[in-house]
């Protein structure tokens, strides 16, 4: 209860995994852990759906509906009649996007 972050769109296909461990290198929340024959999906609830693992997996053993978990961006998109899932309203938006530079929200990664 009062936890909306238990579900994730992350899907792992262990039978495809070649154990290159690239996903363990790019995931900032240790969602994947090293295993014997293939990596293990250790903490799926910690996935923030950044998509780094899927994008860097050489054998498409991971799928995820990646996007930015930003309420401001999603609400802005909804208000402007745009798709909340499109990612159009997120950090890094250009003048043409609904967030735009002047309304841009900061992110918790300023010094990273």
């Amino acid at each position, binding site marked *: 209860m009062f936890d909306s972050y238990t579900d994730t769109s992350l899907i792992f296909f262990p039978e495809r995994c070649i154990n290159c461990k690239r996903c363990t290198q790019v995931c900032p929340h240790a969602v994947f852990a090293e295993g014997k024959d293939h990596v293990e999906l250790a903490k799926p609830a910690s996935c923030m759906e*950044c998509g780094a693992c899927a994008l860097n997996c050489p054998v498409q053993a991971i799928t995820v509906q990646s996007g930015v978990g930003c309420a401001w961006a999603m609400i802005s998109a909804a208000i402007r009649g745009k798709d909340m899932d499109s990612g159009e309203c997120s950090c890094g938006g250009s003048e043409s996007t609904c967030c735009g530079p002047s309304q841009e929200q900061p992110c918790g990664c300023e010094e990273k």
Partner: protein
Amino acid sequence: MVNDNNTGQSCCSCTQQESAAPCSCGATASPPEIRITDSEITLANRLDHFLARWGFNREGHRVEPGLFRLGNPTPDSAVFASANYTLSFDALRSALSGTDAWILVLDTRGINVWCAAGKGTFGTEELVRKITETRLESVVNHKKIIVPQLGAPGISCLEVMRISGFSVEYGPVRARDLPEYLKTHTATPAMRRVEFPLKDRLVLTPVEFVHIALPMVVIAVLLWFLAGPVAALAAVSAVIGGTVLFPALLPYIPTQDFSTKGLILGLIIAIPFAFSFGTNPALPGWANAAGALTAFLIIPAVVAYSSLNFTGCTTFTSRTGVKKEIFRYIPVMALMAGIGVIMGIILGVSRFIGVI
């Protein structure tokens, strides 16, 4: 500064059909400029960081994209990728103090690495473009680029390799871990984990507050004249609660959802104001009760909404979770705020016409 390692390539060495860019025969294409940087963070840099933190001229904190020479790098020196946001670039170059290296700055439109990676501007296409534009393969004699780990959501190492021939090595999350990382080119699990400690949360609060400061002042002034100084203070407190207190107290407030955390914090903030509004001896009982209830409805709704918006600043909220929060709690917040405003208006009108 012009790079001595680059000889420049005449565009007439290839046929006109092969070259997409127009060229004039006999001329030699100018070699790409390689800028010089160092690891010193000057007073001007610190002022720039301060202004960026306060949201002043958000678009202006940029570094010119392209290749930079840090120290006295040789063709064997490592190449690091960064964003053209001054805070990102300065974190990298200061962390590399004493290291001779090349820094390849991508054009992320003045946005930090992680946000730009999420948007795709710190991405495969731009990385390959900058490798090509700077003729990196003629500057260094290896084919490896160290990319910050948080750039991975935008970079496909496989595509970069396929298109450019350069391999991507993902460095640690934090630039300050680079000196240790470079000893073995292996990141410890701690280097791979992103955290969100108090300091990181607090540095985000100024821009959060500035973002909503003007509406807050307008509303506070209006309330001052319509309902008195306590009501004005309530508005200021709600905004400060949502934009400063909430980030500071984030891990300590019960529940996981940002909205419920905000509602809890808002209820606590509302208590003294509800007490003040609810114990006015000059007003009838129903007006006192309505005044107290108004505070308990509006303040938590405002704090909860600000808290929900803080999801974009955090390092861990997923799109699925945030979307669920929006659909689950925004109607509740809207209802609370709506009823609270109506009650406030009724109280104000009653006072104006002399009913209370």
